[in-house]
């Protein structure tokens, strides 16, 4: 199956291919008055697979939600795929262009796997062949497709959400603990999926506590601490074609 990104680059940033897809400068995000991000600087280049690490509450999820256009900037500036995160229109354009798999899977319990995937694929303007291919690839076609999501295991829910993400073919993948709930085969499948997506031109940001396992496919790791990027090392690359520093 093809994992080429469907969304073209925005006109204002047609040359993003070789530049930073994510640019965050001095970003402050308040959550109920608490600074979930407190002056964070981060840039992510095209084709990177960036791991976000940090303790619980460090701000990893907020970074991903900010990059998804779901969180409002309180201070600082940021752009994703050329869209300004400081404006409502920019956040709306960002949401259309990126794919987010958070802690929640965004599935309707009362609908079957197939009904969920088809609804979200239609909502995301994904093509029918992509939907079928994604379901097949993630192992949620066939008998599983007819099961209501409420009856699925955590891993099957994850696979269904991933099928929706894959069918969407975003340029920027934002994944929050994507391995959670997946079995050994599922984890391998996900890792392969990430490498294929990156090889096809997608950029990926992954928040994970899964030290060791995913390191081989990351181009670098960013440590988030207290709402800022505490450490920003460029890691040696385990995958071919990565940036070696």
């Amino acid at each position, binding site marked *: 199956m093809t994992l080429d990104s469907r969304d073209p680059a925005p006109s204002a940033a047609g040359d993003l291919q070789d530049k930073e897809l994510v640019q965050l400068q001095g970003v402050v995000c308040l959550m109920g008055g608490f600074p979930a991000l407190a002056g964070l600087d981060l840039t992510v280049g095209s084709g990177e697979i960036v791991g976000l690490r940090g303790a619980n509450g460090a701000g990893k999820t907020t970074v991903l939600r900010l990059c998804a256009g*779901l969180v*409002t900037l309180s201070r600082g500036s940021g752009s994703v795929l050329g869209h300004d995160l400081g404006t409502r229109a920019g956040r709306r354009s960002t*949401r259309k262009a990126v794919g987010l798999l958070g802690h929640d899977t965004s599935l309707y319990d009362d*609908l079957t796997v197939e*009904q969920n995937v088809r609804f979200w694929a239609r*909502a995301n303007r994904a093509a029918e062949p992509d939907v079928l291919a994604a379901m097949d690839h993630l192992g949620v076609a066939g008998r599983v497709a007819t099961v209501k999501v409420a009856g699925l295991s955590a891993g099957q829910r994850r696979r269904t959400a991933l099928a929706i993400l894959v069918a969407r073919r975003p340029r920027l993948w934002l994944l929050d603990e994507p391995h959670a709930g997946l079995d050994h085969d599922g984890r391998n499948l996900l890792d392969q999926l990430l490498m294929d997506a990156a090889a096809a031109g997608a950029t990926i940001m992954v928040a994970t506590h899964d030290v060791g396992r995913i390191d081989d496919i990351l181009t670098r790791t960013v440590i988030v601490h207290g709402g800022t990027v505490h450490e920003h090392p460029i890691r040696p690359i385990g995958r071919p074609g990565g940036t070696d520093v």
Partner: protein
Amino acid sequence: MFELLRDARMVLGKDLLIERSSRVVTAQVVPFAVMILILFGFGISPDLRILDSTATVAPSVLSRVTPGLLFLAVLFASLLAIGRSFGVEANDGTLDGLRMAGLDPAGIFLGKAGAVVVQLLGVSAVVTSGAFLFFSVRIEWSVARAVLGVTTAGAAITAIAAAGTLYSALAAGQRERESLVPLLVIPVLAPVLLGASQATEAALFGAVADGWPWVAALAAFAALYVGAGILSFETLLEDM
């Protein structure tokens, strides 16, 4: 405009599909509305009669207050339907999913309100039949009365669904939303209850012409809340 209608139809279809699968309205909201109606019947003795020297048989108080009781039952039932409408979006981050899909916020509002309208029309059909059955309402049927009754129900339910969807979205980010929504919605919908009762009373017992000004007021109320929802839903979703 085409995208807005497309998104509205998609969300409406999804919500009706969820109802077809879960049967919450059929199995819970409708019985709840009928139960309220029956309890009203227990509260007002069917033997209480209105003194009317022109009538051969004095009408019962219960039958004459039916229009108000009917819409009270629909109003209370609507709180469950509206709560359910946003309850399915509160689980598992689906509201974020709708935002991430880039659907037009006005389309999401129209789709969700539209699904509540369809469900409440079904509820009101059952409740109306129940009211005629339980309260022995006797009227002289005519096309004009039927048209007034159906138009009243349509306008009142549209107003309830639009205002309810708007206030549910307003409360969606709050932890206390289940108790907050009735507190917000019931006072706002008091004029709808008044208008719908008056128009239905005209349709059932009075002069049909007396009902249309109330229907116009209901339609204006519905238009106001549909307009407010279309204009403000993006801001409400953004602030969640």
